[in-house]
């Protein structure tokens, strides 16, 4: 979601005046003094978000029936937050807990306006169509403006492959209609999943237990749909809250882990929740999270699980855990174990942990996936342990591809800093042809001045994989002969127990004499000639909202996608922290999209960055003919 300039947030469109709402006097909803042309007096008594404080007054005169229930909806009241917090809090400490809830948790609530006319308060507000009211909420500017990290990122493929419903251009309201959104939450509602009007898969996918899909017949009623149909999702740990020196409330979510865990259903009595197994997500609660407001506030912390029922919005028809029976059956690591719990949460999750005896046993007869991993170029990826053992070896050069500020805070000892986004390897965003590689001579000069030689073993890492993999692609194109990606990046390094250094390192300039590999890069002109050839597949690594044309890069002349390209968001190929999934899983996933090593694969995206990342990963997986469409959509859209 692109940020709005201050004036954009409050700029009316003339079209608004022609609407029913535009015919109303502004002050009838917002207050203020319309006769004044002085900002201060015009806004005296003005309420920018009238439906938050008094939905009945703001909207109820005309929409009385809706407001009657919507004012008590989960979105408006966040009542289930209060219920969960109250069940953990001590009686004496509730006042402090409630204060923290109001300052932090309640910042997320919204009312009529946040879904129908502007971005919600939590998302910094602002009209989305010049104050024109919309019956149907905008998925980008409204729904995922708040439900961003866990829902938006996963739905649109900024983490994972995205959701099949998103790829079919279904918006949020398609599954979550007014009936659910406007429903009043009963006072004693224990959690949002217990809302009777909640959307369920079976609202559309009916009668599965009598259908033709064998796995549905076997599993339905025992396993929540998402267990088989979700991908990995983010789990959060350690949300600290407080107020800064200026009194502004903040939260700090200290750790995020992409994973998938199956837990036992301990709420089998909840509506539509009779399954034995379901996905669970770690929520960021911990006993000291509200310590800013008072000590020992959560004396009953164990009353509610911290591994909470999850419904990730990243549904795929085929997933790795369900690709074959024994990817799940007997796979202990998929099921929540006591060992996954932190000390303070063992009691809270006692009914969610799946004991060894309840992990489904392996199936004797099952189909095999026949994935050929023999071509994987294993030396192109190293792990933290390998790097630790080989640090300091002659010709092993470690490059930190994060920005300089991150490098200065702490890097792998001996690593040099080379940020591919700012080191001049690519043209700038405001040039005639933005974001493309500069000439080979210039690239070789930059690499040489950094102290790199073409025959060094160059190991590159970063925070998420995005810049490290792109730099590796440039190195391969420039003629480096031995390059490797550090699996899991700096986070993986720390997780392995290795320390960082804050002492900057540099190397003497050398001559980078690699031989350019022009076959690795394809221009838009050349790509246009390849389109439609049966042995060529164009892999578009952008998020789904770009493919659908719902958003566009600011430098692109229009939204859209290259005709015939296949979308596989980069997030499908690597985890949040830059860790790689197994080669077998990656090859299987690519195969499900028709991307196989016997074809020429051209990778593309908006600016060439994600395309370069995908290029390197496909090279690692052993694809013999991979090429980067370096000009990418930004330049394609300007010329075609």
């Amino acid at each position: 979601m692109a940020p709005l300039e201050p004036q954009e947030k409050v700029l009316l469109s003339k079209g608004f005046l022609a609407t029913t709402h535009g015919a109303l006097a502004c002050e009838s909803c917002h207050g203020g003094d319309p006769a004044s042309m002085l900002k201060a007096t015009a806004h005296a008594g003005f309420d920018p978000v009238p439906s938050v404080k008094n939905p009945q007054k703001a909207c109820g005169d005309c929409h009385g029936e809706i407001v009657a229930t919507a004012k008590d909806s989960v979105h408006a009241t966040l009542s289930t937050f209060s219920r969960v917090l109250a069940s953990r809090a001590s009686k004496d400490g509730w006042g402090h807990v409630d204060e923290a809830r109001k300052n932090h948790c309640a910042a997320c609530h919204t009312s009529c306006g946040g879904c129908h006319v502007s971005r919600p308060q939590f998302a910094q507000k602002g009209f989305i169509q010049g104050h024109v009211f919309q019956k149907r909420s905008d998925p980008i500017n409204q729904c995922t403006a708040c439900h961003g990290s866990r829902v938006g990122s996963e739905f649109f493929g900024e983490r994972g492959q995205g959701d099949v419903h998103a790829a079919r251009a279904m918006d949020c309201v398609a599954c979550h209609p007014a009936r659910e959104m406007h429903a009043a939450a009963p006072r004693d509602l224990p959690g949002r999943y217990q809302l009777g009007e909640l959307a369920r898969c079976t609202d559309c996918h009916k009668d599965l237990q009598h259908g033709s899909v064998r796995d549905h017949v076997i599993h339905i009623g025992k396993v929540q749909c998402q267990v088989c149909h979700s991908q990995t999702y983010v789990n959060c740990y350690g949300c600290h809250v407080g107020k800064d020196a200026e009194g502004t409330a903040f939260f700090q979510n200290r750790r995020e882990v992409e994973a998938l865990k199956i837990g036992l259903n301990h709420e089998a009595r909840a509506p539509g929740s009779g399954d034995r197994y379901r996905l669970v997500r770690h929520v960021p609660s911990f006993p000291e999270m509200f310590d800013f407001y008072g000590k020992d506030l959560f004396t009953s912390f164990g009353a509610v699980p911290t591994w909470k029922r999850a419904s990730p919005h990243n549904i795929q028809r085929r997933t790795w855990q369900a690709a074959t029976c024994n990817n799940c059956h007997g796979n202990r690591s998929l099921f929540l174990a006591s060992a996954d719990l932190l000390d303070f949460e063992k009691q809270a999750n006692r009914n969610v942990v799946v004991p060894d005896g309840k992990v489904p046993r392996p199936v004797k007869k099952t189909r095999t996936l026949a994935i050929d991993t023999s071509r994987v170029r294993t030396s192109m990826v190293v792990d933290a342990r390998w790097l630790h053992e080989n640090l300091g070896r002659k010709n092993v050069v470690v490059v930190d591809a994060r920005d300089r500020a991150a490098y200065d805070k702490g890097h792998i000892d001996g690593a040099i800093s080379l940020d591919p986004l700012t080191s001049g390897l690519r043209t700038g965003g405001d040039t005639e042809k933005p974001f493309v590689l500069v000439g080979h001579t210039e690239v070789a000069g930059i690499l040489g001045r950094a102290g790199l030689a073409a025959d060094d073993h160059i190991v590159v890492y970063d925070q998420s994989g995005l810049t490290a993999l792109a730099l590796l692609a440039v190195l391969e194109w420039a003629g480096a002969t031995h390059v490797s990606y550090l699996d899991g990046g700096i986070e993986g390094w720390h997780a392995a127990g290795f320390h960082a250094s804050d002492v900057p390192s540099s190397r003497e300039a050398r001559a980078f004499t690699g031989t350019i590999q022009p076959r690795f890069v394809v221009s838009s002109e050349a790509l246009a000639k390849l389109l439609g050839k049966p042995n060529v597949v164009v892999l578009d690594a952008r998020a789904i909202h770009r493919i659908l044309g719902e958003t566009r890069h600011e430098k692109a002349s229009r939204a859209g996608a290259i005709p015939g390209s296949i979308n596989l968001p980069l997030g499908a190929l690597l985890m949040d922290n830059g860790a790689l999934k197994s080669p077998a899983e990656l090859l299987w996933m690519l195969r499900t999209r028709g991307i196989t090593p016997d074809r020429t694969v051209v990778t593309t995206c908006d600016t060439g960055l994600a395309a370069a990342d995908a290029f390197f990963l496909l090279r690692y997986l052993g694809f013999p003919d991979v090429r980067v469409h370096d000009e990418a959509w930004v330049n394609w859209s300007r010329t075609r």
Partner: protein
Amino acid sequence: MAIVCIAMSRALWTIATMGAALSGILGVGAASAAMAAETSGCVTCHLDEAMLVKNLGGATAKKSAMQSGAG
């Protein structure tokens, strides 16, 4: 600028008052509402992007620099 604003304010006030009087004479509720909106000082300013840029320049979102991680 302030003088101009005050002058405009008086002019708008006059228009608004006349509009209100006229709608009372005609007794057409919807028409009076539409007129109220169109002649409102709120609309005049909030359709004027240049004025908004001038008045809101430097306005920043209230978000703590200490905030981090997924919300």
